[in-house]
């Protein structure tokens, strides 16, 4: 009898090893967005006894792709009376209709300056996650193009999988009625008219609370809101942050709760979003207390100065590192995973195998594969990809909330001795970043905000260059006399490409996960830096 006769053992050995990696990868990929989603939604566990209503309620803040599909599958049991625009403020001399509010809000939006794409926006929001829960204040910084995010995550900012991103904003219809129709069909599917309208209201809410919209689009959104059936106005509301406001109101459908989009009553600036289920249960709100254009992440001082070329490059590089193009199903770099890199340098080419934490390295010496661990005697004669810099600290399973300060990160990086001369000019930090970017399988396992720091190095400039492989790159240039004087990024994808150290340029032309030293076969869905 052989061991194959033990079906339980065979079954357990058939479990693909990749399964755990894929699960860890998905966990990492989804955690922040999922926690942000529920933070803005409402639980039944610790709430009042309306749980039957609340649990049937389509959560209007959930925006996962699947969520949309499920949302539209529910049939509308009770259709509310088709909306007539109603004025509700009896004492007001002028009746504020949805259309009038839309006209005023549009005019105010059009008077706003256009925000340049890489501009950092500081946002302080106040969130109430449910009735009886305390107001929580959250601070975040993001760029007005989704390239950068920093600070505390909430539903109202940051990375949203699903719909839409800044890039997609450009393709939205340029006419309010067409925009309504587009969003009603996109998000409301085959639902009844009130469901479609509620779905579109939801999207407008999302657009206004998540993006720094171009003025024309913001004006269009307000016009489109007024055209939605069932939308009315409440001219006296107070946000959870205590601000007086006027609101577009959408009444509940069986799938959507009541929604409010609250604007400042005199400037018509966007203030808050609120929603609650029938009977007032499940009330939650997110109010924008501050929204200020600033010079960079961490700053709260208003600054409308357009971001510098170095800042823009740093933001793009961060984004490319955090969400590499075509990385779906890619490999997570656990510390022991072997990575094959092809390096092209101005003084010759090289193929190097290294573990993701660069604790072991292998390459061919005189036709023989030599494998060396950092602890071994051969380590001294090995040219390590990551010769000096922060340790690899696997952030899996819990990705860090990125709250480190840029000056703090810079100071830490400067504490590594990398052998360069211009220590006062931050050369150690630049060298450490180049080392980590070259030698580690996952940059964020070593560094928070790795590339944003580079934009703050005194004397840094940005140059468009052609690297040793003939490819167009964009480079940070540093005014040092030795060590790393350039850090290169692909000019179209902004992925890290290489560096110039002591006059020698090194470009990584291939970076794939493999089974072990000497292996040339990429593991599934390798992350390819250069195509």
């Amino acid at each position: 009898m052989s061991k194959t006769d033990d079906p339980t053992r065979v079954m357990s050995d058939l479990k693909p090893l990749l399964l755990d990696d894929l699960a860890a990868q998905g966990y990492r990929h989804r955690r922040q967005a999922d926690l942000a989603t529920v933070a803005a939604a409402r639980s039944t566990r610790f709430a009042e006894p309306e749980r039957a209503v609340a649990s049937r309620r389509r959560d209007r803040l959930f925006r996962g792709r699947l969520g949309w599909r499920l949302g539209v599958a529910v049939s509308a049991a009770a259709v509310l009376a088709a909306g007539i625009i109603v004025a509700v403020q009896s004492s007001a001399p002028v009746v504020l209709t949805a259309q009038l509010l839309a006209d005023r809000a549009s005019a105010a939006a059009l008077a706003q300056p256009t925000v340049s794409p890489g501009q950092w926006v500081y946002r302080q929001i106040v969130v109430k996650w449910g009735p009886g829960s305390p107001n929580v204040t959250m601070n975040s910084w993001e760029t007005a193009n989704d390239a950068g995010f920093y600070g505390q995550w909430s539903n109202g900012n940051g990375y949203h999988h699903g719909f839409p991103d800044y890039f997609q904003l450009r393709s939205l219809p340029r006419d309010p009625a067409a925009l309504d129709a587009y969003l009603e069909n996109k998000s409301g599917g085959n639902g009844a008219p009130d469901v479609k309208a509620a779905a579109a209201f939801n999207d407008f809410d999302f657009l206004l609370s998540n993006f720094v919209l171009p003025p024309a689009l913001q004006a269009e959104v307000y016009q489109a809101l007024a055209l939605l059936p069932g939308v009315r106005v409440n001219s006296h509301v107070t946000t959870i942050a205590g601000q007086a406001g006027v609101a577009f109101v959408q009444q509940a459908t069986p799938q959507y709760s009541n929604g409010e989009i609250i604007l400042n009553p005199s400037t018509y600036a966007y203030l808050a979003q609120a929603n609650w289920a029938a009977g007032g249960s499940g009330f939650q709100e997110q109010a924008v207390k501050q929204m200020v254009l600033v010079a960079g992440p961490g700053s709260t001082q208003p600054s409308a100065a357009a971001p510098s070329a170095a800042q823009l490059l740093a933001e793009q590089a961060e984004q490319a590192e955090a969400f590499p193009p075509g990385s779906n199903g890619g490999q997570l770099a656990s510390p022991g995973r072997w990575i094959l890199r092809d390096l092209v340098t101005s003084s010759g080419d090289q193929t190097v195998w290294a573990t993701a934490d660069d604790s072991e390295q292998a390459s061919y010496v005189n036709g023989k594969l030599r494998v060396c661990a950092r602890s071994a005697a051969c380590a001294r004669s090995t040219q390590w990809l990551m010769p000096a810099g922060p340790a690899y600290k696997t952030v899996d399973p819990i990705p860090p909330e990125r709250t480190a300060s840029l000056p703090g990160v810079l100071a830490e990086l400067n504490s590594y001795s990398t052998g360069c001369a211009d220590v006062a000019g931050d050369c150690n930090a630049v060298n450490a970043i180049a080392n980590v970017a070259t030698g580690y399988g996952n940059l964020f396992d070593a560094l928070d905000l790795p590339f944003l720091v580079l934009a703050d190095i005194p004397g840094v400039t940005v140059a468009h260059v052609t690297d040793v492989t003939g490819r167009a790159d964009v480079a940070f240039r540093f005014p040092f006399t030795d060590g790393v004087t350039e850090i290169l990024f692909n000019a179209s994808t902004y992925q890290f490409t290489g560096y110039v150290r002591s006059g020698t340029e090194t470009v990584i032309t291939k970076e794939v996960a493999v089974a072990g030293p000497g292996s040339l076969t990429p593991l599934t869905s390798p992350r390819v830096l250069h195509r």
Partner: protein
Amino acid sequence: MGDALEWFTNLYDQYYRNVLRYALQHAEQGQAEDVASETFLIAWRRSADVPDQALPWLLGVARNLLRKQTDAARQRRLIVDRITAMTSERDLLAWDTADHVIERAMALRALAALPDADVEALTLVTWHGLSAAEAAAVVGCSPRAFTVRLHRARRKLADQLAASHDAMVTTPAEGDHHEQDG
């Protein structure tokens, strides 16, 4: 509310990967992640219903979501197809170092000969570490019924493996191929 979020965060950190692993057995990465995320959103909205032993409940929700999306015809062969798709070189290396007489591809073929419900029963216990009672809660049958199903599934797999093994021994070409690989 802080308590609720903390409870949820712990639940998420503890079980998200388990749920995703399960979903990956039935769906591609993107869809599986959607299902896992939706499962936890449901857990949040219905958190009063989530038992202290949460994993079987979560897997049950994920299972329902997957069933909603996958028609029966496509689901029939899906688990084995997914296992094949996720099999990497590392699995083959690991398989070779264990002292199996049978090739991994053959074992997979043996598994493919089983009804999907049997494959599911086997994976719930051997891959996801559930007890028979917990697995029964996931698939929505009595623990006793599940135990019977599991027992039958093991026996069917053993039969299939034995058949594959016999076929391999009596087919020299296959045997040579195995020698080369080893």
